[in-house]
């Protein structure tokens, strides 16, 4: 497939982003640049200055709702993209309601327990929708330990073991690597479906 064919396919696709922090912003921007046509963004939080070291936001966006700031950044990068943003703290019953129409769901929240809730809800409520999650990205280096794990329609990018702590903080490069792996996996799913 050449770039024009890829762009034509991606422009018809819908991707859900659950969580607009370090993973969600980097994955969404990458997918917007690749040409994904429609995004459903969900987050309840605001952009904080002390998180600009790892999230794809800018200083003049501090204090704004993350989903609105990310919507603006996606539209700047790809003016053709349609972006629907929801100021929601996700609970299990919301997952299908918000993401039912998505071709792929990117799970990009920070807390492990919330990840579990979103993944479980998605598998139960929309089993035909691939879920691309990110887990295990704290610290720096150890690039070779980052992998894509798959079972059925669930894909998990990361090392599955690097828990954030004082000695293993969040740092932009490893977060961006995992987010790029998530975005790349989304493209693989969307383009493979079209190829089949």
């Amino acid at each position, binding site marked *: 497939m050449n770039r024009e064919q890829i762009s034509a396919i991606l422009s018809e696709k819908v991707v859900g982003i659950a969580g607009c922090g370090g993973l969600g912003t980097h994955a969404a921007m990458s997918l917007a640049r690749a040409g994904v046509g429609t995004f459903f963004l969900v987050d309840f939080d605001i952009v904080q200055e002390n998180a600009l070291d790892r999230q794809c936001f800018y200083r003049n966006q501090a204090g704004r709702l993350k989903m609105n700031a990310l919507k603006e950044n996606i539209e700047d990068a790809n003016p053709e993209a349609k972006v629907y943003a929801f100021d929601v703290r996700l609970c299990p019953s919301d997952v299908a309601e918000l993401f039912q129409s998505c071709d792929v769901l990117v799970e990009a929240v920070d*807390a*492990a*327990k919330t990840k579990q809730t979103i993944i479980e809800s998605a598998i139960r409520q929309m089993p035909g929708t691939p879920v691309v999650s990110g887990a*295990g990205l704290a610290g720096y280096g150890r690039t070779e330990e980052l992998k894509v794990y798959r079972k059925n329609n669930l894909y998990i990018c*990361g090392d599955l073991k690097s828990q954030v702590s004082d000695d293993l903080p969040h740092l932009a490069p490893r977060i961006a690597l995992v987010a790029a792996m998530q975005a790349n996996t989304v493209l693989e799913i969307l383009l493979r479906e079209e190829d089949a």
Partner: protein
Amino acid sequence: MIKITVNEEEKNYQGQEVTVQDVLDDLSGNTSIFIVFLNDTFVDRLQYLSQTLSNGDELTVFPLVTGA
């Protein structure tokens, strides 16, 4: 002896009954939060604590740690 494959590695368990929780307890790591598939079927946390395993079962376990 009950033989179970956990993340493609064969493990032997002694005893009359082995549950998914027994396997999770044996996994070393820094989380107690998992996504579990038994053979090809997703097993959620409401079920897997008491889910009994049989000889030859394949368990896929994804530990979940912090994202960003």
